[in-house]
C-alpha cells in the first residue's frame, strides 16, 4: 500500500507539470480566440447565434470522443503539410489534447463575455459616446471593465472544466494526471485511480479559488486581491511546470502502449531495457488500438507491441486465414512495404480472442467448443470488451458458427470476468494470455473452424528507427523470450486482488527472468 503510494507520488511532478502546462495553454488559447469572437458577437446578432450554438454543440460532445477525434484530423493535416510544404508535425500527444481542450474552454468564456457586454446599461454607453470616446475607447474604458467580473467568472468555469477534462488526454498520448486514472482502471489499482482524481480535483479547486480571488478583486477594486491572485497563479504554474524543464528530451525513443495491463508491463519492460542501454525514453501509455498503429507509422511512437491478428484484420483488412507462420510472414512484408515499419519478431506468446465459460456450466450443457454454443446462443448473454463486437473477427465467428446471442454486453476487461463469475453473462470473450483464466478455472472454448486469426505478440519499430542497429540490438533479446505461461503469470500479478504489484514492478521481475535465461549460455561458456 505505502509502496504504491510512493510510486504514485514519484510520478506526480511529471504528470502534474504536463497537466498544468496543457490546461494553461488550452485556457489561454481559448480566451484569446473567444474574447474577440465574443466582442464581435455582442455587436452582431447574426454572428452571436451561430457562435453560441457551435460552442454549445462542442460542449455536448463527450470529452474522450472530442480528444480522440482530433488525432486523425491532425494526422491528416500533418500528412497534408508534409506533402505541400515539406514539414509535418506530431499528431499525437500535446496538439490533439490542446485543440480539444481549447474548444472545450470556449463556451463559458464566449457566453459570459457576450452576456457581460450585452447587459451593460445603454445609458452608460450613451454617456461614453457623449464624453467623446471612440469605439475602441468605449470598449477598453467602459465595456470591458464593466463586463470584467462576468468574463472572469466564465474563465473560472472554463479553467475548472479544462483541468477536469485534461485527465482524458492520456489515450491520445498526452501525459497528464489522467495517467494515474487510466493505468489504475486497467490494472484495478483503485488507489492509483483515487490518487489521480484527488490530484486533479485539488488542482481545479486551487485554481478556482485563486480566480475567485481575482474576481473579488475586480468587483471590489482591491489591488491586494488581484495581486494575490496573480502571484498565486504564477506560483502554481512555476512550481508545477518547473520539473519539466530538465526533462525536455529531443531525440527520445517513444515507447507506446495500448490500454491494458499486459501492454503496461511490456511497455515498462521495453522502456527499462532501452533506458538501461542509454537511450532517452518517453512513454505514451494507454493509447487506443488504432491510434497507436497510426502513430507508429507516422513516427509519433517508436516502439510498441501489437498482435498479428489485429494487424491482419484491422490494418491489412484481410478476412482469409492462412497458418500462424504465414500470417506473420505476410504481415512483416506488408508492414515494411506499406509503412516502412520494422517487424522485430514475435515475443513468444499469443494473446488471442478466446471465448470462455464457467467450467461447471460448460460441462452441464456439454459445450466444448464455440460450435456447441450455436443452439444455446439465442437464450444466452455474452460479454465482451469495448472492441470485440465491432471487429471483423467477431463477424467471422458469427458467420462460421451461425451464432446469434440474445444479448451482447460490453465491459471494462476487469469487470468482464466478474460479470461471468457473478452470472451476469454466460459467455465472455476473454484474452488467452490473461492470468485470470487459470485463476478462475475457466473453460476456454475451442475454435474448430479456425474462424479467429492468430494473435502473436509482435514487436514493431517505427520507420525512422527501422534501421537503428543499436536500438534493434536492445530489442532482439526479447524475441521469443516470453512464453504464454510466463505472460499469464505476469498479468495475474497485476490483475489479482491481493498482493497486487504495479506493472513496473512486474516488468522488473520479468526483466530479471529474461536476463537470467538469456545469460545462462554466457555463464556456462
Amino acid at each position, binding site marked *: 500500500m505505502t509502496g504504491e503510494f510512493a510510486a504514485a507520488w514519484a510520478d506526480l511532478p511529471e504528470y502534474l507539470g504536463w497537466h498544468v502546462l496543457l490546461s494553461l495553454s488550452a485556457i489561454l488559447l481559448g480566451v484569446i480566440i473567444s474574447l474577440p469572437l465574443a466582442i464581435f458577437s455582442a455587436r452582431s446578432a447574426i454572428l452571436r447565434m451561430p457562435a453560441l450554438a457551435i460552442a454549445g454543440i462542442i460542449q455536448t460532445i463527450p470529452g474522450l470522443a472530442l480528444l480522440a477525434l482530433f488525432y486523425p484530423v491532425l494526422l491528416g493535416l500533418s500528412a497534408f503539410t508534409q506533402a505541400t510544404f515539406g514539414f509535418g508535425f506530431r499528431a499525437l500527444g500535446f496538439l490533439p489534447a490542446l485543440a480539444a481542450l481549447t474548444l472545450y474552454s470556449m463556451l463559458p468564456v464566449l457566453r459570459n463575455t457576450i452576456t457581460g457586454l450585452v447587459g451593460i446599461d445603454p445609458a452608460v454607453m450613451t454617456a461614453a459616446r*457623449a464624453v*467623446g470616446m471612440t469605439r475602441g475607447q468605449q470598449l477598453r474604458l467602459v465595456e470591458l471593465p464593466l463586463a470584467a467580473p462576468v468574463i472572469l467568472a466564465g474563465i473560472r468555469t472554463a479553467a475548472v472544466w479544462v483541468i477536469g477534462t485534461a485527465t482524458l488526454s492520456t489515450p491520445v498520448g498526452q501525459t497528464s494526471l489522467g495517467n494515474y486514472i487510466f493505468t489504475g482502471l486497467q490494472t484495478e489499482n483503485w488507489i492509483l485511480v483515487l490518487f489521480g482524481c484527488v490530484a486533479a480535483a485539488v488542482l481545479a479547486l486551487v485554481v478556482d479559488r485563486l480566480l475567485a480571488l481575482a474576481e473579488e478583486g475586480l468587483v471590489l477594486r482591491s489591488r491586494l486581491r488581484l495581486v494575490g491572485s496573480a502571484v498565486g497563479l504564477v506560483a502554481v504554474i512555476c512550481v508545477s511546470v518547473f520539473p519539466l524543464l530538465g526533462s525536455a528530451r529531443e531525440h527520445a525513443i517513444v515507447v507506446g502502449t495500448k490500454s491494458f495491463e499486459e501492454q503496461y508491463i511490456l511497455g515498462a519492460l521495453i522502456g527499462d531495457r532501452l533506458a538501461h542501454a542509454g537511450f532517452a525514453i518517453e512513454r505514451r501509455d494507454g493509447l487506443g488500438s488504432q491510434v497507436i498503429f497510426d502513430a507508429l507509422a507516422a513516427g509519433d511512437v517508436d516502439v510498441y507491441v501489437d498482435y498479428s491478428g489485429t494487424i491482419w484484420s484491422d490494418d491489412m483488412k484481410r478476412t482469409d486465414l492462412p497458418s500462424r507462420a504465414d500470417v506473420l510472414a505476410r504481415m512483416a512484408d506488408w508492414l515494411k512495404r506499406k509503412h516502412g515499419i520494422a517487424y522485430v519478431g514475435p515475443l513468444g506468446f499469443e494473446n488471442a480472442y478466446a471465448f470462455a465459460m464457467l467450467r461447471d456450466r460448460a460441462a452441464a450443457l456439454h459445450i466444448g467448443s464455440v460450435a456447441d454454443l450455436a443452439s444455446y446462443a439465442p437464450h444466452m448473454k455474452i460479454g465482451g470488451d469495448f472492441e470485440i463486437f465491432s471487429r471483423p473477427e467477431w463477424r467471422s465467428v458469427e458467420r462460421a458458427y451461425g451464432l446469434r446471442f440474445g444479448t451482447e454486453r460490453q465491459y471494462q476487461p476487469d469487470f468482464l470476468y466478474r460479470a461471468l463469475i457473478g452470472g451476469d453473462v454466460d459467455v465472455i470473450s476473454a484474452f488467452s494470455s490473461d492470468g485470470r483464466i487459470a485463476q478462475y478455472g475457466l473453460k476456454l472454448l475451442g475454435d474448430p473452424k479456425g474462424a479467429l486469426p492468430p494473435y502473436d505478440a509482435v514487436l514493431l519499430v517505427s520507420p525512422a528507427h527501422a534501421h537503428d542497429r543499436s536500438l534493434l540490438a536492445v530489442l532482439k533479446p526479447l524475441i521469443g523470450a516470453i512464453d504464454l505461461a510466463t505472460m499469464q503469470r505476469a498479468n495475474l500479478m497485476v490483475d489479482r486482488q491481493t498482493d497486487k504489484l504495479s506493472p513496473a514492478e512486474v516488468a522488473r521481475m520479468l526483466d530479471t527472468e529474461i536476463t537470467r535465461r538469456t545469460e545462462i549460455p554466457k555463464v556456462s561458456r
Partner: protein
Amino acid sequence: MIDIANLTKDYHADGAPAVRGLDLAIATGEFLVLVGPSGCGKTTMLTMINRLTEPSAGEVRIDGRSIRDGDPAALRRRIGFVFQDVGLFPHLTAAENIGITLKLMRMPKPAIEARTDELMAQMQMPRAQFGGRFPRELSGGQRQRIGLARALAARPSIMLMDEPFGALDPLTRDELAPEYRALHDALGLTTVLVTHDMTEAFLLADRIAVMRAGRFVQIGTPQEIVSGPADDFVRGLIENPRKRARALARVLGADPT
C-alpha cells in the same frame, strides 16, 4: 454661435422621434430652453448638435463650421453633455468620472488632478470627502453635480442638457437649477437645455423654443411667449403653471396655519 438650418431626422429604427425642417440660431452666451411634451423630438434635436444622433438632412454649424467636418468623438469632447439619468460610469469613482474627458484628450495626469480638485470644490463636494466614492455611494443630487462637473471639465463653451434636473427631488432641483444658471453666466457658456417643465423653462431661459410633433411652434423670450402665445397649444403650456399656482394658493389659503 450655433446655426441650425433645415435640421431633419426621419423616424428611424433607433426610436428617435422625428423632427422636420428646424431652423434656429443660438447666440454665444445664450441660455436656450427647448420645451415640449414627451416625444415631440426635443431630445432628437439636442443630440444632433453633438452628433449623438446623425441628421437625415439639414445642417448644424458651430462658429461658422459645419459639425460634419471632422471627427464626432473630438466634437463631443468640446461640448459638455448632461443627462437626466446622469450616466456616470459605475466602475469609476467620482473623481475619475470627472477626469475622463481630459484623459481622452491626453492631458497630463497632474493637470487632470488639479482640474478635478477645482471642479469638485466648485460643486461643493470636496475631493477629500467625495473623490473616491463610486456613483452608487452618492445621492441623486450629488451624482448630478458630478455629472455637471464631468461635462464642464474640458472647459467647453457649449453645454447640452437633457432634462438635467428632471429626476431630482424638488428641493435639490430648486437648489441646483439656479446654481447652474449662475455658473452659465459666470463662465460665459452657451446652453441648450431640454425640459418638459414650463416653470423651469421660464425661470432659466433667455429664450424658449416650444416644440410640438417635431416642429417649432414658437421661439421667443419668456416675456414674448407669455404676452403673445402663438396658438392654443402654447397658451395651454403657459396656463399650466398658473393653474398650479392658483390651486396651490387655494390649498395654502385654506390652511389654518
